């Protein structure tokens, strides 16, 4: 018992000594990224926090309003509406893009004919501009003569108004976004699959495990660091969804698909209310930070590191 305590204390002391020795190395390894991030990210972020306490049209001098912008935003129904839309988008987008990306990554990790070409094909939408993608999807989902409604009509299903209908506008954006980002998730998961030693997978096959079981019990848990990355990053980006909404629905019809950053954009560049825009950004920041923190603490439960 006391031995254990002594050993524990010695270990602690050694660790402390190690940590002190490490500090120099920590600085060497972190400074090249920390300095530019402090200057070009953190400093403007702090400046925007300062702006959020003012009324400012980006031309005339700032006017101090304290927490006024926050009070206005938090009591405005519009704020809750745009956050609701953003959340709805994430709830649809994340499962769809992850499941799709995983399916494609696993399929294209097999020895298939022309798989190099196929992998590249799935990546092309990631680099295609949203303008071109939005035009195609608006055509595919066109309520009157679009391909999707044509097919739905053939099998006798109802034909929604998609991006022209307040209820279907966000689902339309979700479909197009998941389709476009599939290749992004695929690349991350393919890189993750490559990092799993082949011996591990082969051993399972030799043991006679069926492919489905060996996937769920071996491959999927070993892929968890990549999955974790995809989920965290997709949530951070999902809360800031903007481009696709801007080009596909413009936030419409009548605000039915307006998202948080869309509102921030309008506040800053349409109405010249940089103070409110910054305040709304910091409210958004608080939400993203909380969601990310929960995931960081929760990861011990399910993410396997070597």
């Amino acid at each position: 018992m006391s031995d254990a305590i002594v050993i524990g204390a010695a270990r602690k002391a050694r660790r402390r000594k190690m940590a002190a020795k490490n500090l120099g190395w920590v600085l060497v390894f972190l400074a090249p990224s920390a300095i530019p991030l402090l200057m070009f990210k953190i400093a403007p972020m702090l400046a925007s926090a300062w702006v959020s306490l003012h009324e400012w049209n980006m031309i005339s001098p700032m006017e101090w309003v304290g927490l006024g912008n926050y009070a206005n935003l938090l009591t405005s129904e519009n704020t809750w509406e745009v956050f609701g839309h953003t959340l709805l988008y994430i709830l649809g987008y994340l499962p769809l893009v992850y499941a799709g990306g995983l399916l494609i990554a696993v399929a294209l990790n097999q020895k298939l004919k022309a798989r190099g070409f196929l992998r590249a094909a799935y990546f092309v939408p990631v680099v295609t501009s949203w303008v071109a993608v939005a035009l195609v999807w608006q055509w595919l989902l066109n309520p009157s003569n679009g391909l999707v409604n044509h097919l739905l009509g053939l099998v006798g299903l109802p034909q929604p108004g998609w991006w022209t209908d307040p209820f279907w506008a966000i689902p339309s954006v979700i479909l197009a976004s998941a389709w476009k980002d599939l290749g992004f998730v695929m690349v991350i998961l393919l890189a993750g699959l490559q990092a799993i030693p082949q011996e591990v997978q082969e051993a399972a096959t030799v043991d006679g495990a069926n492919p489905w079981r060996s996937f769920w019990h071996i491959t999927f848990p070993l892929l968890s660091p990549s999955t974790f990355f995809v989920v965290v990053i997709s949530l951070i980006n999902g809360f800031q969804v903007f481009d696709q909404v801007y080009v596909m629905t413009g936030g419409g019809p009548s605000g039915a698909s307006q998202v948080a950053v869309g509102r921030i954009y309008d506040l800053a560049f349409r109405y010249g209310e940089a103070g409110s825009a910054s305040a709304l950004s910091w409210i958004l920041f608080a939400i993203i930070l909380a969601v990310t923190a929960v995931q960081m603490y929760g990861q011990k439960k399910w993410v396997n590191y070597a």
Partner: protein
Amino acid sequence: MPEPSRDISRALGRGLLWAAVALGAALMLFPFLWTVITSITPQGNLSGGPSLIVQDPTLDAYRELFASIPVGRIVVNSFGVAVASTLLQLVTGSMAAYAFSRLAFRGKPFVFGCYLATLMIPLQVLVAPLFIMLTRMHLNDTYFALLAPNIASAFGIFLLKQAIDGVPKELDEAARIDGAGHLRIWGQVVMPLVKPAMAALTVFAFMESWNSFLWPLVVIRSPELMTLPLGLSYLQGQFTTEWNVVMAGSVVSILPIVVVYLFAQKHIIAGMAHTGLK
């Protein structure tokens, strides 16, 4: 001895899988193909919806594109900034990722949290303060201004940290016993083993810089510093009805990233099949 019926069903399954994946790939390529086709259609119009058949293909749109904006200069600008930012992100990112994965220090979760926090504020509200800051430093309207926000990225650091966390620590220890210091373990042991993640980051970092629009729009005044997205937005203003020219611009902007991807893909795939451990 394998039963022949099992072989047949396996081959059949593989064939079906291939067909499904290939069909999906065709759906993926469709908007891009349509972009290319519109760009070679005379006076491209979109009223009839996308068509995959071109009557009288022509390169007029490309001639018009090259005549209306200095494409060469613009591509060189975009390419230079994208390459510089990619290289910088690979170095700064892999070093930071090594620190977060391998060095013990106090407050590590907090510092890592601060890094991630830089991803959580929309760019739309950062451009104004950043612009004012760079103007005070007399650095606006320069190549450096284009590069500044992309020297380091928490996205890349997080991506590489996850990869390094997957490299067995026994390998570092073996190298340390051989007398290697942190710099050598980082450069010669860990880096070669996270090549797939480095290759993936190469693609994403290049793409991020290549496609960035809002920041260059705010910080660049001189036409000779213009980047591709700025040129394309100018086209969209000029040629609202001539979609073939706009789409020709899109093709010119997409192809370089596809090339970068094709180079990187080999490394994303030919990663670490063997770590040397059993």
